[in-house]
């Protein structure tokens, strides 16, 4: 799951990830173009609902091709430097996968198990992915944050969030 970060100067040649991104953008443009042609012209309108999507899709395709060409000529993207990141650390794709997994799981059980349980699952998975391992503390904090958020938004601000099977208690 870990790989050393590519250093631009040390590795000449074509960067495969960059190429895949460029091709994906081009493909998206083409797909939109095909989709645009299925939109009817519209009746008695000078410019129908179809024109703008055509412009956008042609533009996107053209730009995608330009990016593909520049990547083939050796251009590669510099990953962004954000807060709390270390560009020299090995890239760990396991952590984002855990976050996404936890998010999807939490979202899937949200209506059935309720907002508190669902978001507590999300909270726990992010904390785990960020390297926290004090499980008892994490579970406690996750439930506390989810509960306080739920009460604040439903009682305080009048939003409706799903109570799930805790319906009678909350």
């Amino acid at each position, binding site marked *: 799951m870990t790989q050393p970060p590519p250093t631009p100067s040390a590795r000449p040649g074509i960067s495969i990830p960059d190429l895949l991104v460029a091709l994906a953008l081009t493909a998206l443009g083409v797909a939109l173009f095909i989709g645009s042609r299925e939109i009817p012209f519209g009746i008695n309108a000078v*410019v129908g609902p179809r024109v703008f*999507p055509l412009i956008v899709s042609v533009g996107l395709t053209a730009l995608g091709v330009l990016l593909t060409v520049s990547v083939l000529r050796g251009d590669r993207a510099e990953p962004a430097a954000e807060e*709390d990141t270390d560009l020299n650390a090995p890239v760990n794709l396991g952590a984002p996968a855990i976050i996404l997994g936890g998010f999807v799981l939490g*979202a899937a059980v949200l209506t059935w198990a309720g907002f508190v349980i669902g978001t507590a699952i*999300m909270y726990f998975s992010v904390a785990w992915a960020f390297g926290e391992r004090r499980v008892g503390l994490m579970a406690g904090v996750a439930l506390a944050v989810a509960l306080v958020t739920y009460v604040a938004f439903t009682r305080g601000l009048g939003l409706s969030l799903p109570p799930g099977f805790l319906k009678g208690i909350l």
Partner: protein
Amino acid sequence: MDALTSLFAGFETALTPLNLLWALIGVTLGTLVGVLPGIGPALTVALLLPVTAKLPPVSAFIMFAGIYYGGMFGGSTTSILLNTPGESASIITALEGNKMARKGRAAAALATAAIGSFIAGTIGTLLLTFAAPAIADIAVQITPSAKFALIMLAFVTISATFGGSPLRGLLSLFVGLAIGLVGTDLQSGQARFALGRPELLDGIDFITVVIGLFAIGETLYVASRLRKGKGSVIKLEGGATLSKQDWRRSWGPWLRGTALGFPFGAIPAGGAEIPTFLSYTLEKRLSKHPEEFGQGAIEGVAGPEAANNASAAGVLVPLLTLGLPTSATAAILLAAFQQYGLQPGPLLFLTNGDLVWGLIASLYIGNVMLLALNLPLAPVWARLLLIPRPFLYAGILVFSTVGVYSLNNSVFDLGLLALFGVIGYGMRRFDFPVTPAIIGVVLGPTAEAQFRTALQQSNGDFSIFVRQPFTAFLMLCVLAALVVPQVLKFRARRAA
């Protein structure tokens, strides 16, 4: 003195006890969320949208004004104490302010940032008060074709002219435009790119895109390249204060920074980055002791911070008078207006004058509140920086979920949120700027509507975009904004 009369009416709206309370809650929440590392002003406003969901429009916007300025304030605190800029406009503050803090002058750095922001914000709001009605009067007469050209200009300047890579900026913009196309076409009732999903017929909620690209994208990206070990947070004893000598060295940069920042915010030039850099360079050149720059010169915090906040006020000029957002944060404010069924633009001054002027008046009030809050409470905000990263980012994800789920109470939207989170991760990893995509989503539908209206009026004659003098002039500007930077780059390369 039309503007003054309207402004006094606005103060009557904003000074009711309840609205003052909303303004106070707004600035407090804005500062609180803005201080958190990893959350810039744009995300601050987006995450706090659900808080205002059940308020009447006037109170909601008064609170937004507080959140908007509060988020800016909070960001500078983080930059000074943590050396991690939340957004590109705070890079300079992080550079020079953190150096000051390391030398034990954190209190002075925070104070010059806070007072400078207050002065810049107040002058900026004054300029807004008098410029906005005048511009709105002219803007009423702008034709659809010129409006379309104006949006094109904003597109090009924000995505291509001032960014690092015009190609990546334009790609980001077009992806945003594509997202904006999804849903039912308002003029013909025709569904577009809805993939047969009923949830997509209403289009993709803009807030889902923003929170996905900014919050989820950021969380995924940081998790993939987490910095091991603790960031060093500067300890702060007591509130933020300025000595007499600091005052003497700060007031000039404050005023000059304001003068640079406001016009840059008011034109579509990609936000506050450029004026903060310009202000820094200018102060260095004017300084009697340029050798201090880079070592913690107070002018290097005072000027850019003022420029940053003046630009935040300047951004509101095109937003309120033309409905044209020139930064990601402004785009989110525009979306907030649209949620209430309001379309910012020249007509808003006529139809909802009390709301607009109440908002402008509360900007003054919010600025005073922020100053009162931030000088004594600086140590409290500094505490927030000590939150362990796992718990902080987990909390951001929970709040993102609330914000998106509460839009339509739909789990489908959470799936979209995850999708945009992955796209946001890719944008950070492959160096695509996020702001053009945001602007594309928000302004795309407006651009299309103006384009079609213009062509309806000309019976399909495309030459309307070059025949009207003002439109033609704007179109020339669009061309220049695309071509000139490339020519300059080419010549620089030739010379090198």
